[in-house]
C-alpha cells in the first residue's frame, strides 16, 4: 500500500466525515409537513453548568439527534506537562475536575510516588483519605443539588452550599487554598493537620449528617423530583461499560466497579465502606448512588479520624519533598535540595506507570512515561468526563429538552475535566 495513496484515501474519509457531520446539522424533512427544528444548546447556557455545545435536532418536543462540540476551555495540559517539573504539574490537575481538586492532586502525587518507589507514611495516607473523601462529598453535593436546581428546586442547593463553604474552610486550614487547592506534596502532605483544622473537621463531620438528611428528605421521595428524574437518561450496564463509564454513573447502572476497592491506594483497604449500586442507570439512580456515596465517604472520614495514626506526615524523599524553611537557611544540604527542587533540576527515573484513583466522576488515570529527564516525556490523563460524555448524545435521543438538561447535570460533566 503506497503511503501517498493511503494518505489520500484517509484524507478523503475525513472529508466525507466532515461533510456527513455538516449534513447532520441541516434540518431534513422527515415526514410531510413535519420539519425538524435545529436547536443550539450552548456553548454558554445557564443549564449546562459549563461550556459545551450541543446542536440538537428536535421533532417538536422530542430530541432526534444531538451533535456535541467540546474543547471550549481546552488548555493543553498534556502538552504543558511535558515542559514542567513533576511538582509543577499538580496545579494543572487542580484545574481538571475543579469540584474535587484534592482527589486530582493526590492522584498525581501517588502516580509520581509509584514511579519513584516512595512509600508514604500511614498518617499521611490517612490524611489524604480524609481530604479525598471530603472532596468526593463536595463533588457529589454540587452535582445533586444542581440537579435539584435544574428540576426547579433551588432551596436544597442553598442548604448544601453552606456545607460546601465549610468544607472549603477546612481545605483552607489544611492547605491555604479553597478551590484549586494544590494540596499535598510528592511524598506526603505539606504540613500536619493543625488543631484548628482537626477541630473544624470533627465539628463538620458531626453537623453535616443533619443537613444531608434534610436535603434528602427534600428530594428523595419528592413526587415532582421523582417524576422528573425516574426513567430519564437511562443507560444499560452493557452499554455503559462499552462507553467506558466509571464512577457513580457506572454504579448507577448496576456495576460495582470502584477503584478504591479493586486497587486500593492510600490505605483504603483499612476502611470499611459499601459500594452503592443502582439498577436502571437513570437520573434518579445516579442521584441516589451519589447520595449514598456521600454517607459512605462520611463513614470513611469518621474511621480515618478515629484511627489517625501518629507519626510523620511525609516520606523521607529529599529529592522531591521540600526541606523545612528554617533548615534552608541554616543547613547546606537543605539549601541545595530546596534549590534543586524549585528549579526543577531533579531527574526522574526512566519508567512508565499507570495509576488511577476513584475521582468524583470515576476512574481518574494518570499515564506517565518518563525518559529519565526532568519532565515527563508524555503524560496522559484518563479523564472520566471526557470518556462518558460521548454517550450523552445517544442517551438523550427520544427525550424532551428539559429531560436532556436533567440528564446532563446528573452525569456531572465538568468542563475542566472534559477539555483538559
Amino acid at each position: 500500500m503506497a503511503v501517498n495513496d493511503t494518505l489520500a484515501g484517509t484524507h478523503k474519509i475525513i472529508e466525507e466525515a466532515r461533510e456527513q457531520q455538516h449534513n447532520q446539522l441541516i434540518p431534513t424533512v422527515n415526514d410531510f409537513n413535519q420539519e425538524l427544528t435545529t436547536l443550539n444548546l450552548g456553548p454558554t447556557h445557564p443549564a449546562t453548568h459549563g461550556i459545551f455545545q450541543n446542536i440538537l435536532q428536535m421533532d417538536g418536543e422530542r430530541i432526534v439527534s444531538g451533535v456535541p462540540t467540546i474543547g471550549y476551555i481546552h488548555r493543553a495540559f498534556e502538552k504543558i506537562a511535558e515542559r514542567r517539573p513533576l511538582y509543577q504539574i499538580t496545579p494543572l490537575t487542580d484545574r481538571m475536575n475543579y469540584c474535587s481538586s484534592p482527589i486530582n492532586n493526590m492522584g498525581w502525587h501517588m502516580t509520581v510516588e509509584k514511579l519513584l518507589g516512595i512509600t508514604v507514611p500511614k498518617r499521611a495516607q490517612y490524611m489524604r483519605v480524609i481530604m479525598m473523601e471530603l472532596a468526593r462529598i463536595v463533588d457529589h453535593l454540587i452535582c445533586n443539588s444542581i440537579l435539584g436546581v435544574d428540576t426547579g428546586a433551588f432551596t436544597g442547593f442553598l442548604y448544601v452550599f453552606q456545607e460546601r463553604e465549610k468544607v472549603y474552610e477546612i481545605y483552607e486550614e489544611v492547605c491555604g487554598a479553597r478551590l484549586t487547592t494544590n494540596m499535598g506534596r510528592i511524598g506526603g502532605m505539606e504540613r500536619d493537620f493543625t488543631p484548628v483544622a482537626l477541630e473544624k473537621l470533627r465539628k463538620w463531620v458531626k453537623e453535616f449528617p443533619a443537613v444531608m438528611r434534610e436535603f434528602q428528605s427534600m428530594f428523595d421521595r419528592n413526587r415532582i423530583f421523582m417524576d422528573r428524574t425516574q426513567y430519564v437518561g437511562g443507560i444499560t450496564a452493557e452499554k455503559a461499560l462499552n462507553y467506558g463509564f466509571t464512577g457513580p454513573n457506572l454504579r448507577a447502572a448496576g456495576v460495582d466497579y470502584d477503584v478504591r476497592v479493586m486497587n486500593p491506594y492510600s490505605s483504603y483497604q483499612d476502611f470499611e465502606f459499601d459500594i452503592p449500586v443502582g439498577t436502571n442507570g437513570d437520573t434518579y439512580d445516579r442521584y441516589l448512588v451519589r447520595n449514598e456515596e456521600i454517607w459512605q465517604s462520611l463513614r470513611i472520614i469518621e474511621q480515618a479520624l478515629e484511627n489517625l495514626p501518629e507519626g510523620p506526615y511525609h516520606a523521607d524523599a529529599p529529592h522531591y519533598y521540600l526541606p523545612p524553611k528554617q533548615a534552608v537557611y541554616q543547613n547546606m544540604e537543605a539549601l541545595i535540595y530546596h534549590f534543586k527542587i524549585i528549579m526543577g533540576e531533579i531527574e526522574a527515573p526512566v519508567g512508565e506507570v499507570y495509576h488511577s484513583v476513584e475521582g468524583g466522576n470515576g476512574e481518574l488515570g494518570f499515564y506517565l512515561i518518563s525518559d529519565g529527564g526532568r519532565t515527563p516525556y508524555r503524560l496522559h490523563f484518563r479523564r472520566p468526563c471526557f470518556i462518558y460524555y460521548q454517550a450523552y448524545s445517544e442517551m438523550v435521543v427520544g427525550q424532551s429538552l428539559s429531560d436532556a438538561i436533567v440528564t446532563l447535570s446528573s452525569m456531572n460533566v465538568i468542563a475542566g475535566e472534559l477539555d483538559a
Partner: protein
Amino acid sequence: MADPNEEAAAQSAAVTEEDPNKLTNARVLANLHRMFGEDAFTDVEEPYGLLTATTTRERIHDIIETLQADEEMQLNFLTTMCGIHYPDHEGKELGMIYHLHSLVHNVRLRLKIFFPIADPVVPTLTDIYATANWMEREAYDFFGIIFPGHPNLIRILNVEDMDYHPMRKEYPLEDGTREDKTDLFFGR
C-alpha cells in the same frame, strides 16, 4: 500489638495460598501467546506490575476484538488509549497505546503499536468499543493519527482550522525564537 514479623509471615502465607485460578500476568501472557502466537508480541515487560506488550497495527484490531470476546480473561474494558511520538525512532515515530482492563479479574494489559509518521494509519476500534470514538478523535487531533473506518474523524479539542498536530514533539511548548526566557545557567 501483634508482632510485625508474624503479620508479615501471615501475609506471605496468604499470598502463597491464593486461588490457583487467579489470573496472573504470567497466565495472561501465556494465553496471549496461545491465542495469537508467540511472534505477535515483542518487548514484553511488566513495568510496575502492568503487563505491557508491543504488537503491530495489522494485528491490533484482531487482538482487541478477540480479547473482548474472550470468556476466560474478560479483558473487555477499554480504559484508555493515547498516542505517542518518538521522533528518534526511525520508521516507528508514532505510536498508539491501549490500556485494557478486566473488571472481573482485575488484570490490566497495555498494548502498544508503533508505525512510521509518513503513514500514520491505524485501524479504528469504534466497531468494538463505543468509547474509542472520542479517544481516536483525540489521537487524530493531537498526533495526526488517522483511523480509517472511524465514523466522524474530526478534531475534538482544538479548533477546526488548526493545520498541525500539536502534541508531536517538533512543536515546542514555547516559541523557540524567544530569548528573554532562555536561562543560560539552568536551561529550560
